[in-house]
């Protein structure tokens, strides 16, 4: 079993007629994802790689069904697209779009929450349940090279590091249950503390790897949750330890900025260690550490 989705999950792509979304749809089909429909307002009736395109989400769901959607629309249209998906009854919405105004993000998250829908992202690369399904663009045109089915869950603030981490595990013969890129923005719909309970329940998952970055308070909350409730092994790696010495400067993702005494890697690592997590200094060590605990 994987968390969030599996090979039976029916997926709709919002913004499917965009160049990158069209390529992604093709790759998803090739990986075995059940892409049942696409939506682009004004382009209903077209087909993209054989996938029927509709003007509205309601129509797409009525005609083709749908459990999840992947949103790849321009930033100022994202809020409307997400709310439309929620209204059409979609319960898992992966938002790839970056640079959505924060007040739009807050509104769409609140709306989804009120209707019991889960949002991953914005600025997420998507999720992958190896050898089951892929929602988003993780692994690009050859995901099977980096991802393999197995007992390790991955949660990452960085899209690129999802594939990087899965790749080094796969090279050492360690597969993954589900890999989730939560998005590098300060405000995202699903954070560590939303996913850890799912991995806790998932029988296939035996250990979880977290890719963390400086800035914000998401890691602090994760450490507290792990300490109190999580019983599986957790291996933690941080990119950007050097950022602690440069308060006020932003590096990489919009959320990577530390203030004096706030959001530093040093403090986060201390909390993870006291929660019983294994914190590695070098991400190359992760396969070896996992082999010891699996």
């Amino acid at each position, binding site marked *: 079993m994987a968390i969030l989705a599996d090979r039976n999950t029916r997926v709709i792509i919002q913004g499917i007629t965009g160049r990158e979304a069209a390529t992604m749809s093709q790759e998803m089909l090739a990986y075995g994802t059940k892409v049942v429909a696409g939506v682009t307002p004004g382009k209903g009736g077209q087909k993209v790689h054989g996938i029927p395109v509709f003007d509205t989400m309601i129509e797409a769901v009525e005609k083709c069904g749908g459990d999840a959607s992947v949103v790849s629309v321009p930033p100022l249209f994202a809020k409307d697209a997400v709310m439309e998906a929620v209204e059409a009854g979609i319960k898992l919405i992966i938002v790839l779009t970056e*640079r959505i105004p924060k007040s739009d993000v807050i509104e769409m998250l*609140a709306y989804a929450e009120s209707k019991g829908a889960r949002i991953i992202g914005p600025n997420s*690369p998507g999720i992958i349940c190896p050898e089951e399904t892929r929602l988003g663009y993780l692994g*690009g045109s050859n995901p099977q090279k980096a991802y393999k089915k197995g007992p390790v869950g991955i949660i990452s603030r960085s899209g690129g590091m999802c594939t990087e981490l899965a790749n080094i595990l796969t090279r050492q013969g360690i597969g993954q249950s589900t890999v989730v890129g939560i998005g590098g923005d300060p405000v995202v719909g699903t954070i560590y503390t939303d996913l850890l309970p799912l991995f806790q329940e998932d029988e296939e998952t035996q250990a979880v790897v977290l890719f963390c970055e400086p800035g914000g308070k998401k890691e602090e909350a994760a450490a507290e949750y792990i300490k109190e409730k999580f019983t599986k092994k957790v291996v933690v790696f941080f*990119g950007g330890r*050097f950022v602690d010495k440069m308060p006020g400067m932003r590096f990489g*993702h919009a959320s990577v900025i530390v203030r*004096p005494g706030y959001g530093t890697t040093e403090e986060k690592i201390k909390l993870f260690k006291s929660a019983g997590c294994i914190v590695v200094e070098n*991400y190359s060590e992760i396969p070896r550490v996992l082999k010891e605990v699996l």
Partner: protein
Amino acid sequence: MRLYEFEGKRLFKEWGLPVPDGELVEREEDLLEKGKKIGFPLVAKVQVLKGGRGRAGGVKVINDENELLDFGKKFFKEGFLGRPTRAILLEKKLDVEKEFYLGITIDELAKRNCLLFTEGGVDVEEIAKSGRVLRLHIDPFTGLKSFLAKGFFAKADFKGKTLLDISDIAVKLYDLYIKMDATMAEINPLILTKEKKFFCADSRIEIDDDALTRQKGNLEKFNLPVREEKEREPTELEIKAREIDQLDHRGVAGRVVEFDGDIALIIGGGGASLTVFDAILRYGGKPANYCEIGGNPTVKKVQKLTELLLSKKGIKGVAVITNVLSNTRVDLVARGVIKGMLAKGIDPSKFPVVFRVPGSWEEEGFKILEKYGIKYFTREQTMDEAAKYIVELLKKEA
């Protein structure tokens, strides 16, 4: 985008928030005339985009003309905390009974906007840590209604007219926050005078960079020029790198931060750049820069970035290291970097350089690297191994 105090106060006035009488002095020669208009004693405040002005001496009670001239001369000439002084704001000194902190910002864990309130003027940095802070999460569809604000401040022991006044300030501040697409709006301190009147003695407003396009009308209306500011002034290299990244809209090849080292880094994406930078330091190397490539930038952008990074004095090696790429093409990155090196007259088969850029189109990419005799790692090796290789190679060459 962070606003100056005086810009924030301009918005406060527009929204009907109480601001002390003040005069903005943009030229040293206007100091006296504007100071006399306010009358002594007054408060003089340097206008720079930096926190902690008070502690560092940038806010001062001024008792007479001489003190005012000294203050103005010093800060117009020297700037403040390494920044040029934009202006000096002179304000009427208030008869303070009590100081408060009132702010609105995003709570990333609750995924909501949040009203924050505490007694006593405090450091912004201390706010989040302080246990004494009262919080009210705001439902975006309800907004901050008057009854919610009154209920909140009643719990903080406000009564009668002051309860109504402070609630009104919070409601107006939230309206400004939403209408201006702010990500932070702080009044610190919010002052209650002996006559029981509230004044917003300082302002800190940040506008969402991702909303600047749709805020264009408001920014023009309220005379708020768009600017990109960092914690320190950008270096020449950083400015040029930004220009290169704006050559076209395909992908990212930029976000350069200059450092004091000798290894040019061409790294990406966001998380991997942080990881590689740490690794170079851990093995004892000295990065000349931080940067990011991703989202499949054009060959031209990568080439220009490479040329720029190689133009820095004292560069002894180049490390091109990324995570396993999903949507960026390996062959295009390879082409860009090689073209950049050749344009600078560098033979990539002789200069210390390492590639570890696996992923989409890697077979084509590796072929190009082989053709030019460049050392490269594949996805079988980690980014750490590539970082270690270049650092040790440079140590050997030294």
